[in-house]
């Protein structure tokens, strides 16, 4: 049997403070009505519902909040923030938790992170997203070669895929690449995982 959670001992006040500071949201404003969960279009695949993540964050249960797949499956559509009766930007809290988990290298849904990196790699290289490049990189990283391949003909027909990467005029691509470089340098300086 699972033991009862000692919520006094496990309360991580520092974690609460960091989440509040980085998200700019007051976690204690949440009265657990559940409207975020009710409206969440991705909730059906979550291991922990949005209001439960908010509850874990409120109680300072860092592991429950950060090791949840839900923060990675969140679509960032912000319906939760729109519906929240207490004006909490719930999506911002989810994003904050996602970044905290990534920096601490405790990513519960590795493939989602791989997709992120695949996407960002194309942006870094060309200054803009490149769909086919993102797909190719993601397939290599995740070894999910045939995933969603059935959608390709339809997407091609609608000209959603350009075979050549989009570039930014007037050397914009290089500027974007330099932003990434600076970010990596800063991460290295601060000793965090980029």
């Amino acid at each position, binding site marked *: 049997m699972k033991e009862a959670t000692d919520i006094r001992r496990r309360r991580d006040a520092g974690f609460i403070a960091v989440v509040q500071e980085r998200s700019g949201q007051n976690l204690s404003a949440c009265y657990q*009505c559940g409207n*975020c969960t009710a409206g969440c279009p991705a909730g059906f695949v979550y291991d922990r519902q949005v209001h439960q993540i908010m509850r874990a964050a409120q109680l300072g249960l860092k592991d429950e909040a950060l090791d949840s797949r839900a923060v990675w499956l969140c679509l960032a559509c912000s319906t939760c923030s729109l519906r*929240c009766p207490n004006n909490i930007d719930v999506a911002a809290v989810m994003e904050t938790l996602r970044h905290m988990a990534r920096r601490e290298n405790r990513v519960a849904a590795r493939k989602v992170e791989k997709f992120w990196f695949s996407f960002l790699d194309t942006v870094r290289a060309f200054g803009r997203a490149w769909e086919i490049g993102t797909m190719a990189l993601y397939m290599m990283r995740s070894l999910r070669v045939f995933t969603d391949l059935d959608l390709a003909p339809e997407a091609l027909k609608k000209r959603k895929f350009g075979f050549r990467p989009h570039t930014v005029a007037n050397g914009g691509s290089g500027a974007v690449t330099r932003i990434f470089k600076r970010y990596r340098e800063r991460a290295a300086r601060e000793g965090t995982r980029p």
Partner: protein
Amino acid sequence: MRIGVFVCHCGSNIAGTVNCAEVAELAKSFPDVVYADDPMYTCAEPGQAAIEAAVREHGLDGVVVASCSPRMHETTFRRTVERAGLNRYMFEMANIREHVSWIGKDREANTNKAAELVEMAVAKLRRDRPLTAKTFDVVKRVLIVGGGVAGIQAALDCAEGGVPVVLVERESTIGGKMAKLDKTFPTVDCSACILGPKMVDVAQHPGITLYACSEIEEVSGYVGNFSVKIRRRATYVDWKKCTGCGMCGEKCPSKKTPDAFNEFTGATTAINIPFPQAIPKKAVINARHCRQLTKGKCGVCAKVCPSGAVDYAMRDNFVTEEVGCIIAATGYDLMDWTIYREYGGGAYPDVITALQYERLLSASGPTGGRIARPSDGREPQTVVFIQCVGSRDNSVGRPHCSGFCCMYTAKQAILTKDHLPLSHSYVFYMDIRAPGKMYDEFSRRAVEEYGAEYIRGRVSAVYPDGLGQYVVMGADTLLGEPVEIKADMVVLAVGIEAAKGASALAEKLCISYDNCGFFMESHVKLKPVETTTAGVFLAGVCQGAKDIPTSVAQGSAAAAKALGLFARDKLENDPQTAQVDIRRCVGCGKCVRCCPFGAVAETEIRGEKKAQIIETVCQGCGLCASTCPQGAVQLAHSTDNQILAEVNALCR
């Protein structure tokens, strides 16, 4: 002058952040101060006795108490000094609690500020002189604004107590929201059956004058002597002749008039009597939908009326009533829930308010008591109730709980099962608030005996599925999962706000209101019926969310306040009024024009125009004193010299 200073510790309220002993010690160095002490609780019996003893022992002729706000204990200490043989106005208060100890933690700064406030009070007291109150007559009549159940109760109690009542109701019938209800919790007895007799009592009581279809236009005067101008809206029917037979409504050809009494769930005729038990049972023409009044062609009601009561030429008219006090009982309205786009924003016919649902349940409603979907008239199989729509919602600026929705939702779930035994009800709730007598038992009965499915969570969206039903997307937070229900009907427990026009009335009555329009009581706990304006009392939901029993109780409480006020034949004024120095007055009349109470009159002294203060009318606001270009008008105990003395004490 010999002044005594008492610096109260107020337990740790003041002493926690102010060195009271040091303040008292400093006070001894202020001019005319011959005695200073720092008692633990000055307002307690030993504290007051110490003041009395000090006055006698040290021959004091003025007292300063440095403690809480004068709103709290000024009258207490005025009585204390009076008992000690001084004039009650030879007393000043320095507020070192709300203005010092409660707002800062720096002990040294607080102690200094407290000493400065005491010094100012001493400077003011040195220029005080004894004042005597004047008495004035009281008009022993009461005006009650709003004829809902709270107003009805207040009217009946006042009238039974022998005080004539003027009851003003905006709609064409009294009864308010309660008259629209089918049944009432927690007993499920018929609303009309218990309210009806009270409404009839109002109509029949010789001590009650009822103005229906009327509104307050203007209020002037002060406690004991209010003068209220009432607008009697044109009803286009002479109520002296109308017998309430209802012939006009039967024959009226304008049959698509929106039915406000039925919360727009049905249509009515342009001339109608809102419901069978209406008081007064008189017909009224809705001018916006009457063919005679809009197009000039029809006149059917005038032809069929057996008593010739219809009068299309009728105009609004005014009456003025003199009363001694006013009870506001204006009730509530539902907030505009159509701002909730996720519930359809009013576009889906079968998503309705609980008050509309109440009309569908009622035998006098548009369906004769049959629960029918407004869209197709079918009886619903699945009804979803959503609570807290526009309550406890900061995102739409409505943080308050509407108080009675939990209970009426349970009642409606029970009634739904009663009407449609095969139906199924779901209730989305956040918390069940049922603290009243037999309330929790009642809401449990909805679950245990009537099978209502209570789901702890909220609804994020309602949309039509295209097949005649509605998809309700919600969360069950106890299950920890999103849930979905296909419903035939959705009933919203819409939050309340103060009645339309309540803030305008508040401004006429000089009372304050909060950001949802509810009238502010004088003290949240200890003066829930009084307002900050003397002689204006509150009853019912106009002061905040209340159910029927509490509204009735507050109606009776307001009546008790009115009867208590009228138990005295004369009232005393506060003598801290404006006074005119005749030698300085040039008769410019500015004070006459600026006085909001009509307390400054123009007189002639030796052929010269002069201002004269009617002391029993003056409320001591000081507008005239600051307006007077000659400095001829001075407010007793706030004279220019006293204010300058206070400033000097502070800047020394």
